[in-house]
């Protein structure tokens, strides 16, 4: 069985500071990993995903994430955040050969960017 843990439920940060949102997963097989973002009063949208290949994945809005197989982590980073990045971020995992019915979401991290 798979699981995903987002280690921080809330992350406050000042504008233009760097940020890292942490995600760890557990799986006995190879996985696909995703980060989704939910802006206030909206549905989720995909930020980036890791399927295979390069472990550093670049997404929209200047975000990137690094897949670390030995640490079973997929942390999301941005070198300089903006007020508009205030949102809730969800890490998700599913396994090779599985179905999207097996996509597991973390409980979310609320990023609050302060001026």
């Amino acid at each position, binding site marked *: 069985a798979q699981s995903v843990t987002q280690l921080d*439920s809330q992350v406050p940060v000042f504008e233009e500071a760097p940020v890292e949102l942490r995600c760890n997963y557990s799986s006995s097989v190879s996985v*696909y990993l*995703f980060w*989704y973002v939910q802006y206030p*009063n*909206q*549905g*989720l*949208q*995909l930020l980036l*995903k890791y*399927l295979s290949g390069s472990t550093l994945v670049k997404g929209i809005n200047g975000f990137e994430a690094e897949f670390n197989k030995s640490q079973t982590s997929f942390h999301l980073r941005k070198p300089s955040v903006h007020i508009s990045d205030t949102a809730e971020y*969800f890490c998700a995992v*599913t*396994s*090779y*050969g*599985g*179905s*999207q*019915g*097996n*996509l597991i*979401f*973390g*409980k*979310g991290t609320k990023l609050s960017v302060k001026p």
Partner: protein
Amino acid sequence: DVKVTQSSRYLVKRTGEKVFLECVQDMDHENMFWYRQDPGLGLRLIYFSYDVKMKEKGDIPEGYSVSREKKERFSLILESASTNQTSMYLCASSRRQVYEKLFFGSGTQLSVL
């Protein structure tokens, strides 16, 4: 622009009522999903459908049923609403492959009084 449309943004119902939540996608996607989102619990899958008239239970199907008579439409049904079903409901759709991204609707905030 691709779209997943949920019929209501806010809905208020009474305990015991039968409730229908409707979702329509315009992307010809094979897969459609219903999730429930609660603070601190993230997203939990209620049901998903991988084809017309096909469905599979997710993690929390109790108290819910679904209908997919046409490819573009996926309905969530609460047979007899209860207060513990007060929640944000999110519909999503995707192409068939497991690595494809999900497209989400804006959600329906359901309050059961």
